[in-house]
């Protein structure tokens, strides 16, 4: 037994790797530190809802029209849910796993975004970038549709530039008419059926 063991030990040689003096290689597809690109981010908050340990958060300041996106690596579990739900590829997991740091600050990433102003009442409502992103997507979708005239499209787009409250008010006459045609007996009162 001892001989066999000795042979094994000699055969293997040194098994300990000289880390951290030599970097260790990780497998392709390894889930390391999430890398964030604020240029691509539209502040839609999808990632903050998906993030299981609340490493990602979003604060909206309606007074000043600013939304702050933040990622705290100290809470991150490297699960990649953020990457999975992000519509623009603004956050992706890299291979870096050496995050130790002496300051909390080093573990925090933040970005600020402007909020869009309602074209009617001036209140801040959604992230401006997100709104532009949605409008651009809808533009693509609506372009080819025969049933929609140029005017229809710009009317709909204008509607989206309003805050939810104003949108409801402005859109009411159209909804009333739709309801009236479908169910003549139903009366629409102040936005409620």
């Amino acid at each position, binding site marked *: 037994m001892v001989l*066999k063991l000795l042979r*094994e030990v000699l055969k293997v040689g040194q098994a300990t790797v000289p880390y951290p003096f030599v970097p260790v290689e990780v497998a392709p597809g390894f889930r390391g530190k999430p890398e964030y690109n604020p240029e691509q981010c539209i502040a839609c908050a999808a990632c903050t809802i*998906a993030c299981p340990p609340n490493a990602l958060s979003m604060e909206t300041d309606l007074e000043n029209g600013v939304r702050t996106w933040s990622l705290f690596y100290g809470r991150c579990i490297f699960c990649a849910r953020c990457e999975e739900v992000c519509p623009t590829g603004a956050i992706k997991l890299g291979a870096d796993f050496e995050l130790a740091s002496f300051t909390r600050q080093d573990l925090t990433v933040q970005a600020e975004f402007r909020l869009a102003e309602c074209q009617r009442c001036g209140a801040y409502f959604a992230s401006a970038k997100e709104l532009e992103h949605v409008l651009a997507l809808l533009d693509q979708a609506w372009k080819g549709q025969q049933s929609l005239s140029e005017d229809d499209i710009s009317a709909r787009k204008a509607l989206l530039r309003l805050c939810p409250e104003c949108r409801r008010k402005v859109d009411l006459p159209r909804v009333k008419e739709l309801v009236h045609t479908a169910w003549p007996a139903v009366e629409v009162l102040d936005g409620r059926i």
Partner: protein
Amino acid sequence: MMLRPEEKTQRGQRYVQALRQQFGTIIQEETWQAPEQVTLTVDLNSLPAVVDAAYHQHGGWLSVVAGNDERPLNGHFALYYVLSVEGDETHNGSEPESCYLIVRALVPPNKPEFPAVTPRVPAAVWYEREVRDMFGLQPVGLPDERRLVLPDDWPADLHPLRKDAMDYRYRPAPETEDETYEFFDVQGEGVLQIPLGPLHITSDEPGHFRLFVDGEHIIDADYRLFYVHRGMEKLAETRMTYDQVTFLADRICGICGYAHNVAYSNSIERALGISIPERAHYIRTILLEVERLHSHLLNLGLACHFVGFDTGFMQFFRVREKSMKMAELLTGTRKTYGMNLIGGVRRDILKEQRLQTLQWCKELRQEVSDLVGMLLETPNIVQRTQNVGRLEPQVAREYSPVGPTLRGSGFPRDIRVIHPYSAYDRVPWKLTYKDGCDVLARTLIRAEEFFESLSMVERCLDTMPDGPILTEGFNYTPHRYALGYVEAPRGEDIHWSMLGDNQKLYRWRCRASSYNNWPSLRYMLQNNTISDAPLIVASIDPCYSCTERVTVVDVRKKDVKIVPYKELERYCRERKDSPLKA
């Protein structure tokens, strides 16, 4: 809709009929959650009788007990006693059939007590203590009056899992400065007490042991755990959405996290009637077995360590690295795989990964068989482990232990066979059990299971069907509930989950395998010498902690001695210079 579309008929009808015949109107309601899961609501006073009948007359094993505060739903507290009912050995000449039979009873809030089941089914003891702590329901007739989970300084009337009790972040001011927990008091001439802990023997979590010895001989043992209860159930129920909990389940255990993840996912998939793709079943099976590889290698390494063969320990850990690499390659990380979503898995296994994994399987088979060969040739391995730490079959039958601990005492019980999930009924494999009832049997089972796991990974990789890996677009239906279960390396992990009406869980009861193994450990320690204690504890491969020190109480001399754990461990390895002398 069902998890397994091919399975249309309800399994276990015969047990329900037999119980109905015996108990008549005591059984008030019968609901099926899945083809193999039935819940019977019974009259509260007859709870012990029904659980007893299912356990002792129909080959039942107690898997878990879940308390639930259903006052907002139906005005009552509820208790769910989950039994895996497997029939008697003879099956009365018919085919064996098994199901999860859940006995449910409602407890009125104005009289929060219930008749304890423990006097008839000892396996319920920890569960009833826990239900008392967490829900403030008093088990009448429970012989053990001590808290299980809550610390000594926790307020007496604060029961954390009641819906109106507290926010999950609330930390009440300590009620007392002193330790008030009462350990057993074993009297007798020459009996000595040895406390071990609160930091434990094989891993790095706290637990406190007290051994009662006469000379070097263990007469009895008592222990206390839950020093670091993390409040995960509360956290999941209040802070997280049901689809985020998979990631929390991964973190229940540093070893069998993925097993918990699959058990949790299955519980939700069953509750919501989601069919998951075939390929996802195979991927889950592969990863579960990869997890078993590294877990069993860890335990085999420790077995070497405890019999004084430390080079073997190092060698096992060296080759174990390959199984960790395998996990990294297949999941993107060494532990906390994060691979499941409700409905399937998130990452496919591609060709290169498959080939590399097969190559590593081949290498591991060779390397580990050499090492196991050496371990078994170590002169004192058999002498140190044979007939040591005996778990008698009768004791095992009464306490419902799980995994290799149970299979080492002659019971061929493995959830992968009894209640097949994932792809375990799609690929052929061999179940291992032994009737040595000792440390040796449990160790050999792990060694054999290791090789079986390798073969299973290979078979699954070779035969897995192509296709999608995730089912999406299902509906969240409030208040449905079901069980999910997995045979983790240490035995059955089981989760009982009930959905809420707010994208969260109303109740999540997760039970790790070691929970069922602890209560019978006392009997394994009895009649052994203290130099074998670390070896015996390691043989159930407990998931919790490093017993840092040991107190020895000599009953004859009436003195207490604290032995550093390192010293006891050294004594276990060298068996020289007893720390009790001098």
